[in-house]
């Protein structure tokens, strides 16, 4: 009967893309560490 897919650690109702914090196919934990951030040039 498959799996309750809401138990795989992904917030399927998230308004934001899941891939930004997708840590690994083997864990429920969201990615830690530096996601792909870009500081606009005017910040520097």
């Amino acid at each position: 009967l498959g799996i309750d897919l809401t138990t795989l650690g992904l917030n399927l109702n998230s308004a934001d893309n899941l891939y930004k914090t997708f840590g690994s196919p083997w864990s429920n934990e969201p990615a830690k560490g530096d996601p792909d951030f870009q500081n606009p040039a005017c910040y520097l």
Partner: protein
Amino acid sequence: DFGAVGDNLSGTSATAGHDHLYNLQMLEAAYHRLPQPKDSERARNYTPKHPSPTPASFPQVQAPIVTNPAFWERLGTDTLSTDMLFFAFYYQQNSYQQYLAAKELKKQSWRFHRKYNTWFQRHVEPQVTTDEYERGSYVYFDFHLADDGNGWVQRIKNDFTFEYNYLE
């Protein structure tokens, strides 16, 4: 007879595929050598802009918590720590901390002005808003040169026009 996907072992060199049993044995072995979270964590060697020697008893590396977005979200709550967001923004340029501080400031309705390189926050609803700009009274965070000593201050600017093409 692979239908829509073609025979996916073609087009790449060398050894033919293995049989199911061999593949399963290799998979079992790989199961005991899964990539660990730290295998993909980037070495976060924070290089201070102006390295200066400090006593060995001082922490010599950044505390891991400053790279955790949740820490910055907590910081944004009370006014005192808003200054810490500004500190990270102006003193840790081009770092992940600056990115997180800016994100938190925006959540607090601060807006970065690209001409003055300063953060503004509406003090009251603007008197005028058009497609190009808004005008009203704003709080802004600035480094104040004064005879009673320099310092970072939050001041009010009345009748200021914030042109949207300067909005970051």
